[in-house]
Every structure is written in structure tokens, then in C-alpha cells.
């Protein structure tokens, strides 16, 4: 499948491998940020825009993860047709 005629097959395989690696990484970044001890840093009696800091932090990280997942979805899907042996198999 050639979705982008400007790329050679090797570049494409490379791009989809990179995408897969990022796809595998994303939940780990999420875990790191949403679980203690990192999340605990924000458990302070501080308000930002009137919202308690930890709540703001959690929802912000959450939103960023959603955006990243959205960005990654397309290149990952392109790599789904990659030949066997791609990472994630």
C-alpha cells in the first residue's frame, strides 16, 4: 500500500515502525504521569483558575494523552498493513 508517493517503501516501513514504537510508549507515559509518585506531587492545597491543582493536573494530562492518541492513530493505522515482523506483533 502506498499512501504517500513521495516516500520509498523503506521510509514508509521506517515511519510505521516509529509510529508503532510511539504507540507502545504512550500508555507508559500515561501511567507514569497519572500514578503516584508523580501524580502525588500535585496534591497541594493550591488553586489555579479556581480549580484545585491536582484536579487540573489530572484532567490536563488526560486531555494531552487523548490528543496524542489522536495524532498517533493515523500513522499507526497506516502501519497496520506493514509486513509481518513489525514491532507489536
Amino acid at each position, binding site marked *: 500500500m502506498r499512501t504517500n508517493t513521495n516516500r520509498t517503501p523503506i521510509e514508509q516501513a521506517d515511519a510505521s515502525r516509529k509510529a*508503532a514504537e510511539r*504507540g*507502545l510508549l*504512550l*500508555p*507508559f507515559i*500515561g*501511567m507514569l504521569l*497519572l*500514578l*503516584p*509518585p508523580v*501524580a*502525588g506531587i500535585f*496534591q497541594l*492545597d493550591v*488553586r489555579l*483558575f*479556581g*480549580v*484545585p491543582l*491536582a*484536579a487540573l493536573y*489530572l*484532567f490536563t494530562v*488526560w*486531555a494531552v*494523552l*487523548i*490528543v*496524542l*492518541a*489522536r495524532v*498517533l*492513530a*493515523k500513522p*499507526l*493505522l497506516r502501519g*497496520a498493513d506493514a509486513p*509481518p*515482523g*513489525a514491532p*507489536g*506483533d
Partner: protein
Amino acid sequence: MLSLDLLLFVCLGYVALLFALAFYIDRRARQGTVGWLHSPIIFTLSISVYCTSWTFYGAVGSAARNGLEFITIYLGPTLVFIGWWWLLRKLVRIGRQHRITSIADLISSRYGKSPGLAVLVTLIALVATTPYIALQLQSVTRSYQAIVGDVDVAGTAFAIAAGMAVFTIFFGTRNLDANERHHGVVAAIAVEAVVKLVALLAVGLFAVYGVAGGVGPIFEGVDTEVIYGAGDIFDARWVALTFLSATAIICLPRQFQVTVVENVDESHLATASWMFPLYLFGMCLFVMPIAIAGLKFLPEDANPDLYVLALPLAFDRQDLALLAFLGGFSSATSMVIVAAIAVSTMVSNHIVMPIALNFMRSGNETSGDVRSLLLTSRRVSIAAVLALGFLYFRLSGGSDALAAIGLIAFVGVAQFVPGLIGGIFWRGASRAGAFWGLAAGFALWAYTLFLPSFGGELILSRDVIENGLFGMTALRPQALFGLTDMDPLVHALVWSLGTNAMVFLVISTLSQPQPLERLQAAQFVDVFRTPPEEAPRFQSAQVAAEDLFVLAQRILGSGPARRLFDDMATDQGRAGLLPLPSDAVIVGLERELTGSIGAASAHAMIRRVVGNESISMTELIDIADETQRLIETSAALSDRTAELASTAQELRTANAQLRNLDAQKDEFLSQVSHELRTPMTSIRSFSEILLGDDPVPEADRQRFIAIIHDESERLTRLLDEILDINRLEAGTVDLPLCPVDVNQAIEAALATVSPVAQQQGVEVERMPAAPDAWVKANEDRLRQVLINLLANGVKYNEAATPRIEVKQSRHGGGITIDVVDNGGGVAQQEAETVFEKFNRGERSSADEGAGLGLPISRTIVRAMGGELTIEFAGDGSSFFRVWLPASEPA
């Protein structure tokens, strides 16, 4: 207060609408005009059955009691979905390739289509789901109560359960094939998903802007404890809850149903990977504000679990209250419907059918009998599951204990995790390990969490809960072996799942898997490397096609069976006949039946017709490792291809070189002929004149003979040069190298050239020589090169006051000799062509040499390990440079 009549009217109207929608969509689906239903958005919305009334009402209740903790229930699924590439993709691929009908089917299929494992998983799912359904019934009746006051609780709950049963049976069992989407159900659930999101957002906006008057004011004056809970919120319980919700999004039977079984297109996962977290984000956004508004503005005795409803009611917003009620109703009913479909499929396929088939064994077999039995069993199972839920609700008396059942169920289904994850990533996972791990985990879950949640009213007495089994304190269910300081949920999770995983791992490494198990393990773990059409073929038994056809008819019904066999026959090129019972046909049929009755039952039924597996262990290992070999073969092939490609490239290059050489040779020959032709022509013409009859004057005679002599000399010189360059290029000339004094060589060359130079009026200047300049060279040949270069400078110098400069210097481990003339130089682009044979350069139009001097010189210098180049000075003039490696003085 909303009137009872209005509420009933709206409620029934909503239900009628859902029925009508489901009916319409189902009919359209059978006409094949619902392509848009196969969209990733509908898929995402159907996954949102995760948000039950436990979310809709319970999240706010949890937030009011424990602050932000509620959010963990939605962070876990978020992590799983944004990491869909890891796990969900593989599950969905396996589900589609093996026509998996439920999570019990997946686990049993992975471990050699084991019926025992399927029954165990089904039982756990049933035990965990029943109270969950009861919880939904409870929340609907309570919300109903909250609006209209006193009602007949049992009657209401019964009406809801019965309504759901009718809906589910009507739209959930139209197709026997569980792999096919339940279009009507999915459409209804998608609508309900939108309703519950809109309702919660509406109440949230009302709480923030209608009640409190903005984001700032709502959080104003709120105690930190309300938001962070008492003590440290990011503790072990936070991690445990996140983990639990992550497992639940895969292991809850209804989630498995919508995500894996009903998935029609793997690419929908990519969209759901961000859209489902976004949906959860929207559901959670206003939970905390609603909880705070409830705490601030509602009476203290108000139930936090009903804040969502009570808040609009307290401020007399009946429209909003009605919307909230519909949202809660939607959350509850969608969960009940999907859970009933999922669990009833398991119960029917793995418990009812195997028993029924056993009884039918000796009976008379008629077409479609199994099919109708199967449909009946599905329908009865649905009714039974819902009846169980209702009974549970009645018996638990609608107690508050139910509220905790959400998390308890999560821990229950989390027991599937080791067997499931281990099974699809680890070939070594064995059936015995999965079975005993699951059994141990289930038992510990029941003992440490599920039974104690009844507060002594079911099996475990209050005494046992407080003092331990047989009065042994070490066996206290909520403080097993003295672990007293733990949160009961974390405690139960650690013990049950820890033991489960341990038993699973240990027994797996100790036990020897059965042949079929090995095969399935390979196919599941390497699902991305196994093309779907590469079915294993190991049926060597003799079987009549008629028997297979009868079997297919019994399960699928005569129409579908006929079509299936016609297709298979056409594939074999036997249109209109029964297909030959080849391996592919048998495997294909088994797969088809699996979609209807699950892997274990399908396998058993096929076995009954085909006979027992007659496959040897060696054969099986061959098959199981076939994927591996395929991979290796293809890798080897691609290596080979790369090798061939590079060889071909080398050949192409060599060929190009040969062509080039061939062209050079042709050119050389034509040049040589041309060069020989000119003197030959003049020699011939002058000799003819001399030989002619006409007398030639003596003076002319002398002149002609001189010309003939000169031309012959030129010919000889030319031939000598050609021979010389040929020998040099062929490397047949022996060039003995010895230390040569550069100064001496230059002096000698100058001495040879100076008479001609003087004659032409060219001034030759020797720059001050450096002493001790020795190079490794052949003295005669070096002199030849220098003479050639100097003669070149003398011959072609067209300057007004011609001058030649010779200088030398040390350079890069050797010595350079530069011959510089002021005769105009060589154009930069001509720099290399002057070294080509027969090229005399632009300066040499009036020349008599053959143009071999420079090529010969370069060949000689190179043969001595040096280099002859044209260099360009800054002002654009050029000079020749000879470089030779330095040497010790002789």
C-alpha cells in the same frame, strides 16, 4: 414534583422509541443498507456501555465521599485504549480470526478448546455480573423513587427487568452467529450513550453556572479534604483502582462483547483509541462540581448517589431532572442489555449446549434441531440472567451493599487477566495453569471480597468475617494472614490476583501441553503472522461429506448450511455437488460452527462426526512451528533476494565498464588509423611523384625526399609511442624503481630541452632547488616525463615573452615538481581531457605530435606510484604537477 403520569409517559415513550429504532435498524440491516452503522463513531459509542448507572449516579456519590478517587475508574480504560496497539488490536484480530463469541470462548479456545475452562470462566462471569445487573435495577428504581416519591419498588424493578428481557431477546437473538453485529441493539445503545453524556453534561453545567455561578465560586471555600479525600489520595488504592479499571475494560463480559466480538473493522479501534477516552473525559468533567454543589446546596441527609437527580429537583428544574432520569435510565438499560447478551451467550454455549447435546446424542437428528435448541437456550439464558439479577436485587433488599458491587465485580473479572494476557503473549501458558490459577483466584476473591460484602448474610457468617474461618485469626477474610493495615479492596486484589498469577505461571511451566493446546497457542500468540486462510490441517480421519452436511444443517439451519457447502464445493470446482471432505472443508466448517456455538462445542461436534484426532505429536509440532518456519523461510528469501539484487548491480556495473572500454578501444583504433593516415598519405603522394614519368627538378626531389623521411620518422615515433603506452597500460613494462635525485633529473631534462627552447626563444627558469630531494622512481622514465612536460610548454607557448618555470617542493610524504608556463593554461573543464589519448587540447591546433605525450606521462608516473595532474592557480592559469613518493637518499 413531576407527576407520576408524566414520568411514566416519558419513560415508556423513550423505551418505545428505542424499540422502534432497534426494529427499524434491524430491518434496514437485513436489507443491507446500514453501512453507516459500521462507523468508528458507532463502535466508540457502543463501548461506552462501560458507563453504567454506577458511573452516572455513582461517580458523583464516590466524588462526594472520596474526592478525586472516582477518576481512576476512567483512567485505567484510557490507558488501555491509548495503548490499543499493544493489546486490543491483538485481541480483536484473534477474535475475528477464530470467530470468538465471548471471553469464555477466547480463553477456552486458546487452551485447546477446553470445555472445563469455558465453564469456569462462564461461572465467574455470571457471579460477577448478576449483582451488577441488580445494581442497575436498584439505581433505576431509586431514581424513580426520588422523583415520584413512594412507589412499588419490587414492581418497578420487575417491570424494568422484564422490559429489558423482552428487548434483549427480541433484538439480541435474531442471529445465531454471535460474530454478527446486533445492529438494532447497537443502534439503541449508541443513542443511549449520547443521552447519558448529554444528560450528565447538562446537569454539570447547571451545577456550575446555574447553581454556583461559575468555576471559581463552585470550588470556593471547599475543604481540601473534599477534593483529595482523607489523607493521601495517590496511594496504593489509587494504583489498584486504576489497574482494576484497566483490566475491567477488557475482561468485563459486556466490554469484551462490544469491543472484540462485535467489532467489524480493526481500524475502528484507531478511532476509538482517542474517542472513547474523550467520551470518558466528558463524563468525568463535571462529576466533581456536581458532587460539590450537592454537598453545598442539598440537605445533609441527601443520598450522594442521587445528587445528579436531586440537584435539579431541589432547584425546581423538572426538565433537567427528567433528562437526568433518562440519562441514568439509559446507562442502566444499555449495561443490562449488553451484559445479558454477553453472559447468556456464554451460559448457553458453554453450559446449556454441551449438556443438551449430550442428551441429544442418541436421539433422531433432524435439520435445524440444534439451531432451534440453541436459539431457545439463548433466549432462556437471557431471561434467566435477568431473573437472577432481579432475584438478587430482591434478596439483597436493595441494600447499600450493592453500591460497592461495581468494584467487587471488577476484581472478580480481573481474575481472567493472567490466563488471557498470558495466553496471547506466551506460548508456554498451559490449560492446567490457566484453570487452577483462575480457580484459586476466584476462590480467594469470593472469600476475601465477595462474600464479606454481604455482611454475614451469605455463606460466610458475621462471626467468620470478624474472627476468621474456624476462629483462626490468620484466616480473617479481610485480613488474610495478618495483613490488617490494607484497604479491603487492595487486600483482596493482591491476594486473589497474586495467587492466581503465581499458580498460573508455576503450573504452566511444570505441565506438558496437549497437542491441540500447542496448536492454538501458536496461532494465538503469532496471530499477526498467521494469514487467516492458513488454517491448520490435521484431519486425517475418514468422513463422509453427507455427515458433515447433516451436522451443519442441524446447527446453522438448512438454508445457511446449503449456502456454506455450495460455496465450499464451488471453491473445489465441484459446483452443484457436495464438497469433498478435505481438511480445509472440515476446518472451515468448524470455524463456521464456532461462530455459533463456541470453540469447545464446535470442536466436540466435529469430533463426533469426524472421529478422534489421529494426529501424532511430531506432526503437531510441525504444524505449530510452521508459522515459525514460514517466517524463517521468508526471511531467508528476502536475504537471497537482496543478494541477487546486489549481484545484478555488480554485473550491471561491470557491463557498463566493459562497454565503456570497448568504446574507448574503438575510438583508439579509429584515432590511430587517422593519425597514421596523414603521414602515410603524404609519403605515398610524394613517392608517386618521384616514381612518375615526369622529370622532377633536383631541388624539388631533395625537398620531397626530406618530407618522406620526416613523415616516416613521425610514423615511427607514433608507432613507438602507441606500443609504449600499450605496454605501460597492460603493465608488461618492467619499471625498476630506485632512489632518484630530483634535482639531477630536472637538470638532465632541462639540458635536453634547452637547445629547442633557445631556438624558440623560450626562457626556462629553474627555481632554487631544495637539497636532498629524493624520490622513488625510474630515472630514465622520470626524465622522459619531465622532457615531455617541458617540451609541451615550449611547443605550445604562444605568449609574447614565453617563459617556463620549474620548481619543486615537499608535499604529503612525497615531492612535487611543478612545470609552470605562461602560455595560456588549460580551461578548467578541459583539465582531464588533456590526458586522453590523441587529445591535443585547444592550444595545439598547429601541432605535429600525435597527442600521446601526456597520457604516456601520466601512465608512467602512476606506474611509479605517483600522480600527474593539472593544477589551477588562483588567477586561473594552470600548470602540470608531478607528485612522487619520497625516498631515502641512495
